[in-house]
């Protein structure tokens, strides 16, 4: 068992890490709750009632779709093309420049049977707003990294919370909530119980959230390590004048990556490509591999296949941390469990804040309950 001094030190860690991150964690839990059901909310708003103009009809090729998309956005360049899995829809992201930041990008979906624009989900942008708040609080990369730092503090507060759980529980059976004595004691027991039962989920969702906040530096590192050398031979040459066929690029890439599913194409000069290459990304078709992407590199001017570049471990780690954070990999029951545990987290955060405020009012040392019990030498009377 810990010495009273050690308990006091761990208590201080728990108190301060929690106090700093609680407000942000509360925001993340509240915005995260609807985000768990993003897909279901989209469907309820009509996403799954959409039907192609000519079901079963011939599909337009990707070059024709790209031409249409660019005609609709004069003066813009293509950034990404992505592919819906369950319907004949291609999504084209364009922007004023190849390296345009997120807010300047334009996203449009096209029906491959007609070339018509698929109307976006009519939620007035509410879900996009919630997602942006949850991801970076509308502050871009600094906001993302800041929330990542809050996630690190949250993890520290969970670990220190587990350490101080022991002295609190030495004379209590697991699960006991002492009601009827004082509100503070009831909420103390509730906080300890809810925190400790959810601890594994909290750590996994918290730490995978931290990894997700590092997506920009991770992708930048991958580009620097794996792609930079490829553009060296082109130094001093003018930029790509005419883009090679996207359809041919996808076909060539598919031929060398059989058994994988097409996910997206990154056009030259963007965050997932080089100045001279388009990258065609595929993912696996099992729950474990569908978050692991592998790109085929295509020379953007000649359309030649340059090769396949499997992703390094840190991009794979980023890929796997996404489902473990979102909870979208085990059907609706898993999402409901995610939501329930999210609500438990909100109670843990709220009760923690309450306990701190209640202690401040009585001016007693925080965690006194845990420290009071420390002189354990005196044998307790048998019950």
């Amino acid at each position, binding site marked *: 068992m810990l010495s009273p001094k050690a308990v006091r030190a761990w208590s201080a860690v728990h108190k301060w890490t929690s106090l700093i991150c609680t407000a942000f964690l509360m925001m993340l839990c509240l915005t995260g709750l609807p985000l768990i059901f993003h897909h279901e909310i989209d469907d309820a708003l009509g996403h799954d009632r959409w039907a192609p103009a000519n079901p079963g009809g011939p599909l337009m090729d990707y070059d024709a779709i790209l031409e249409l998309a660019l005609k609709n956005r004069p003066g813009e360049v293509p950034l990404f093309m992505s592919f819906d899995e369950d319907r004949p829809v291609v999504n084209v992201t364009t922007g004023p420049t190849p390296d345009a930041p997120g807010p300047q990008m334009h996203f449009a979906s096209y029906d491959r049977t007609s070339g018509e624009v698929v109307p976006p989900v009519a939620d007035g942008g509410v879900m996009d707003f919630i997602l942006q708040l949850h991801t970076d609080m509308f502050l871009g990369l600094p906001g993302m990294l800041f929330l990542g730092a809050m996630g690190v503090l949250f993890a520290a507060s969970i670990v220190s919370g587990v350490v101080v759980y022991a002295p609190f529980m030495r004379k209590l059976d697991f699960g006991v909530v002492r009601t009827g004595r004082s509100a503070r004691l009831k909420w103390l027991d509730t906080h300890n119980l809810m925190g400790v039962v959810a601890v594994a989920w909290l750590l996994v969702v918290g730490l995978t959230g931290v990894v997700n906040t590092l997506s920009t530096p991770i992708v930048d590192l991958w580009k620097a390590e794996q792609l930079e050398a490829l553009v060296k031979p082109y130094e001093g040459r003018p930029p790509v004048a005419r883009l090679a066929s996207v359809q041919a690029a996808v076909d060539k890439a598919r031929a060398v990556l059989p058994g994988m599913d097409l996910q997206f194409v990154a056009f030259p000069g963007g965050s997932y490509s080089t100045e001279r290459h388009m990258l065609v990304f595929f993912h696996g078709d099992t729950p474990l591999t569908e978050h692991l992407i592998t790109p085929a590199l295509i020379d953007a001017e000649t359309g030649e296949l340059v090769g396949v570049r499997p992703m390094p471990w840190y991009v794979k780690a980023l890929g796997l941390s996404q489902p473990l954070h979102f909870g979208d990999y085990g059907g609706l029951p898993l999402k409901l469990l995610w939501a329930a545990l999210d609500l438990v987290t909100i109670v843990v955060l709220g009760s923690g804040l309450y306990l701190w405020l209640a202690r401040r009012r009585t001016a007693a040392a925080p965690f006194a309950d845990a420290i009071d019990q420390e002189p354990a030498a005196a044998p*307790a009377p048998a019950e």
Partner: protein
Amino acid sequence: MKRPQGLARVFAAPSAIAALSLFGLVAALIGDGPWDAAGWLGLTAPLAALAWAIRHRG
């Protein structure tokens, strides 16, 4: 008040719940169908423990 218990006693139930949760988190990632069901069962452990504690509180 009861006799102070050792760390092993204090953390017996929480460790079991954490192990079941982690098993659930990984199981649903490994496959579909029965793996998903195993994932749901594993992640039900923390909520079941909570429900049990609330019913037996005193």
